[in-house]
């Protein structure tokens, strides 16, 4: 009968769920169970914020000193650089808007495309008949 079949399906589903849980229980890590509260960082360099160990002083190796100077500049200038941007938000919005129009146009049908209001006016140069009155 129909109502009995439903119960049977339910029981089977539950059994299957239990089986898969048992099967993969060894592979479920603590991280999956308890959520990602801890991040593991194997390197002590990150924990103690160590600097790069390749250094040169007073012109012994100009190549390394150039790199050191560049790093130092990055360190001191980092916060203001983050604020100033090449493209302002407004410019970006305008640019994105024009892209949206272009892409939208691609998906329009041909006759729709022509019926659009902001389509460029058709000002193709027409052949002008020469005046032969003279």
């Amino acid at each position, binding site marked *: 009968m129909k109502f009995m079949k439903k119960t049977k399906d339910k029981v089977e589903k539950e059994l299957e769920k239990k089986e898969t849980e048992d099967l993969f229980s060894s592979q479920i890590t603590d991280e999956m169970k308890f959520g990602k509260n*801890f991040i593991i960082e*194997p390197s*002590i360099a990150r*924990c*103690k914020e160590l600097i*790069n160990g390749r*250094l040169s002083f*007073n012109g012994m190796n100009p190549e*390394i000193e150039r790199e050191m100077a560049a790093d130092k500049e990055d360190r001191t200038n980092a916060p203001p650089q983050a604020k100033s941007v090449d493209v302002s938000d407004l410019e970006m919005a305008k640019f994105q808007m024009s892209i949206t129009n272009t892409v939208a146009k691609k998906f329009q049908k041909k006759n729709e495309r022509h019926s659009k209001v902001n389509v460029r006016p058709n000002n193709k140069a027409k052949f002008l008949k020469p005046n032969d009155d003279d």
Partner: protein
Amino acid sequence: MEVNVNDVVLPGDRVSSSNFSNLHKSSKILGPGLRLFEGQVYVSKGGVLKQNKLIFWVESQKKRYVPASDEFVIGIVTQKSGDYYKVDIGASELASLSYLSFEGATKKLRPDIKVGDALYTKVLTAKRDMEPELVCVDSHWKKGRLGFLNTNGFIFTCSLTLTQKLLSKNRPLEKMAENRKFEIAVGLNGRIWINADTEVVKPLINTILELELLSEEEINKNCSNIFSKNCKI
């Protein structure tokens, strides 16, 4: 036993959850020496438990290097095998370094590295079951400060703790330099390479080895005095 920050800890000690509870909810970072087991944090090596904001780690006096990714180390090429160099970085296993992981290297144009050369390299991967892998380029494929260390230099070994003290945020090496001309590479695997005039090399090595037993604050205060004193001898 339950332990707190700045305690002396032994493997198996549990870090008391009160250390984490008063931090705000973002994820905490567990550095070397700590392990997560059933939602609890356990200590896996002996030392002193340290904390810096959200980061926890165990600090210990070590001489044996255990590779960890993104650390800068000094390696010595011991073997060329096919497409890889085998490099000794003082770990339990030789590390592998592909000849393609140098700036400007291609299959035809191999870097000019010979057996016995010293390299300042970065550990790319360090897994328990695999040999560590090194690279001589950064993420933009530029060599930056990595690569070949020239043969005029002198390499010596020290404890891992000392190399960490030398590279601390206080920059003790910068203080020691003053007007002396030298070039140094400090690998976190306990190897230091120095290139300088002969009259600077000896006092510099002596100074660095003297710093071994000083704390970070003492080093910060006295390093330049010790170096000047050693230079006069």
